[in-house]
């Protein structure tokens, strides 16, 4: 407290405003090349409203050759960048002396001063008669407390926030376009809001995608990685990390993504257990050599059908072991090999699951991983008639992936009975007699011809 007539030395109050050029200096000092004595004071006193970082970005289209060059601009360039908004503009006369600190100069300190103060450095060329309040332009009463901030004078009641007209808490104010604001109102009016969470951004501000962000809030829209220190790529209006962008690009180009490392596979992929990989992630199960895309996946080894038992061999080892093993006796097959049900068989070991007679090249039917002769397949599983949906007792008409009983094998359009001699056409795997087919609009027939070679068919009985 200072009273009139007090001889107590005038101590400066922490009145200050914020200037990005000062922050700029602070940063350079922190980076090791500064020796400005103000810097430490500023660090202590400055209520930083954030320094801005423009994150560079690049569109997919021109990202082709220069993906690695995308980076975040450093602190130095953020202030100088012509594109960033310069809303924290301070008049140039203010700038050099703006940050009042003990260590720099008391003359620039805003302070309460008594008319009779002996502080001649401030009042040396002033007298009460030519001193006017910067706000109301009135003069000052003798003995009245006067606020001096950076050479400008105010009545104490006039030295208030331009928005709320209240004194500045702790004497801290922010100056913008010649007006002074309390911290609260400055934030409300001018501080950037985060494009994600909507909160004010205090501290490091990331400028990217035409908005401001907290570093924690600016993330890859695909994998949510923080992007502030990684850089990003704009992809169809979204910010993506390099990996996610590369993956999208690969998918867009029809390239495969490695199931192990999630990287793009530029060469031929290696297929293994239903997925695709870079071949170099695997070694030959036999000779242990690192594999290339010529490697062979050996499926359905004797006794196993599941994918999980598959193994990879280099081409040389695969050729060496290329002797098939019979799925029944598990011995190598030297002569004729029958391949069915995903396994290899000796001709005489591929048999009906019911009567155990070998098929010897005759037709077999598969059901639930087992093979049956015609007799036993029908006996056990009885075909259902497509029309009556009953098990077919007598003769079965089989065609078009369907079966019919003798009563119901008919044209699906006109219901006229057909037999094994009747030629019919196919539409959606239903039989259509020639008379009906000829009544289809030409345009439909043309399409049916194109999609299923509309040759007349016959049923097998």
């Amino acid at each position, binding site marked *: 407290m200072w009273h009139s007539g007090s001889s107590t030395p005038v101590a400066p109050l922490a009145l200050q405003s914020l200037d990005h050029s000062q922050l700029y200096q602070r940063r350079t000092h922190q980076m090791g090349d500064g020796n400005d004595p103000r810097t430490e004071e500023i660090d202590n006193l400055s209520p930083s409203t954030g320094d801005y970082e423009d994150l560079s970005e690049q569109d997919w289209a021109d990202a082709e050759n220069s993906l690695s060059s995308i980076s975040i601009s450093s602190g130095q360039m953020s202030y100088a960048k012509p594109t960033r908004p310069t809303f924290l503009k301070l008049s140039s006369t203010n700038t050099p002396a703006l940050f009042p600190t003990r260590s720099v100069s008391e003359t620039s300190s805003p302070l309460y001063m008594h008319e009779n103060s002996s502080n001649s450095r401030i009042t040396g060329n002033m007298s009460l008669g030519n001193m006017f309040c910067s706000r109301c332009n009135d003069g000052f009463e003798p003995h009245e407390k006067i606020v001096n901030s950076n050479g400008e004078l105010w009545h104490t009641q006039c030295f208030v926030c331009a928005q709320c007209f209240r004194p500045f808490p702790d004497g801290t104010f922010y100056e913008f376009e010649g007006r002074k604001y309390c911290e609260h109102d400055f934030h409300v009016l001018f501080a950037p809001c985060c494009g994600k969470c909507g909160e004010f951004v205090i501290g490091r501000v990331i400028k990217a995608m035409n908005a401001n962000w907290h570093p924690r809030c600016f993330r890859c829209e695909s994998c949510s990685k923080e992007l502030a220190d990684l850089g990003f790529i704009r992809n169809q209006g979204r910010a993506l990390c390099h990996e996610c962008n590369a993956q999208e690009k690969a998918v867009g180009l029809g390239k495969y993504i490695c199931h192990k490392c999630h990287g793009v596979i530029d060469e031929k992929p290696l297929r293994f257990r239903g*997925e695709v990989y870079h071949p170099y992630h695997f070694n030959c199960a036999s000779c242990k050599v690192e594999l290339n895309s010529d490697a062979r996946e050996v499926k359905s080894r004797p006794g196993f059908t599941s994918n999980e038992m598959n193994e990879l061999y280099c081409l040389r080892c695969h050729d060496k072991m290329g002797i098939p093993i019979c799925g029944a006796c598990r011995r190598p097959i030297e002569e004729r090999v029958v391949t069915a049900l995903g396994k290899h068989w000796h001709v005489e070991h591929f048999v009906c699951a019911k009567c155990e007679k070998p098929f010897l090249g005759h037709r077999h039917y598969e059901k639930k991983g087992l093979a049956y002769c015609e007799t036993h397949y029908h006996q056990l599983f009885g075909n259902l008639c497509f029309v009556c949906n009953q098990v077919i007792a007598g003769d079965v008409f089989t065609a078009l992936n369907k079966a019919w009983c003798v009563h119901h094998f008919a044209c699906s359009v*006109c219901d006229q009975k057909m037999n094994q001699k009747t030629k019919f056409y196919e539409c959606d795997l239903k039989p259509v007699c020639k008379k009906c087919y000829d009544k289809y609009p030409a345009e439909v027939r043309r399409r049916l011809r194109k999609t299923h070679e509309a040759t007349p068919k016959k049923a097998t009985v």
Partner: protein
Amino acid sequence: MNQAPVSCIPSPKMSKAKKVLDEARSSGNPELDLMEKGISSFEEMPGLLNMSNITRLTLSHNKIIDIPPGLANLVNLEILTLFNNHIEELPVSLSSMPKLRILNLGMNRLNSLPRGFGAFPVLEVLDLSYNNLNEESFPANFFILDTLRALYLGDNDFEFIPPEIGQLKNLQILVLRDNDLIELPKEIGDLTRLRELHIQGNRLTVLPPEIGQLDLVSNKSVLKMDYNPWVAPIADQLQVGISHVIDYIRSETYRYLFSRHISVRGPPPPKYIDKTNKLSRNRKSN
């Protein structure tokens, strides 16, 4: 007034249909063949709606526009074939037919199905091919038709299939050939008994990975998917064979591609077929 409502109908046509009816009545044959008789109205088939003993009625290749609600009096009818007529609307009563198992309405001029259409108690095969139907044509209860074994919707105007399709638990055959389909719902993967899926001639670029759950590669199964603008990896697999497509859509790699494709989806591919000259477009209102 002395009205003669049937006077405009040429008598030869009349007698053709009437002759079949008379024969059926005297022989007691419950299966009635009235295809290609030039019939344009049920009035040309006097007494038909009282023949409640018949089990099959075939009226293909006629010119019938209106179906009278009284058709539902044929309570023993199991098979009703109305293929290639000029039908624009169906009576609500149709879905009350207690024994109807097979209903063929292919090649007509239907723009919609009547309310309550899903109420058929035992319908197994429904053929609506070559009409003017789309996803808005289904009444609310359509997908309670869980007795359905086969649903033929080829040559219509569907761009989407409602996800409720997954409720048709007994469906073994689903034909969506030559529509305007932009995507399929993942719920098709719920149709565990499906063994025929026809989706050729649409605007599909990807398949929901859930289709990989279905058994569409056994020797009793059919998946027809040509003539779609598939994404390159699917098109590549399709060239080697359907089983390769199925193997591929079952992979993690494909799940990843699919999720990406859905999230960056561009505009749908253009329509594949010009349908302006479809017969089903010739409605009397035009």
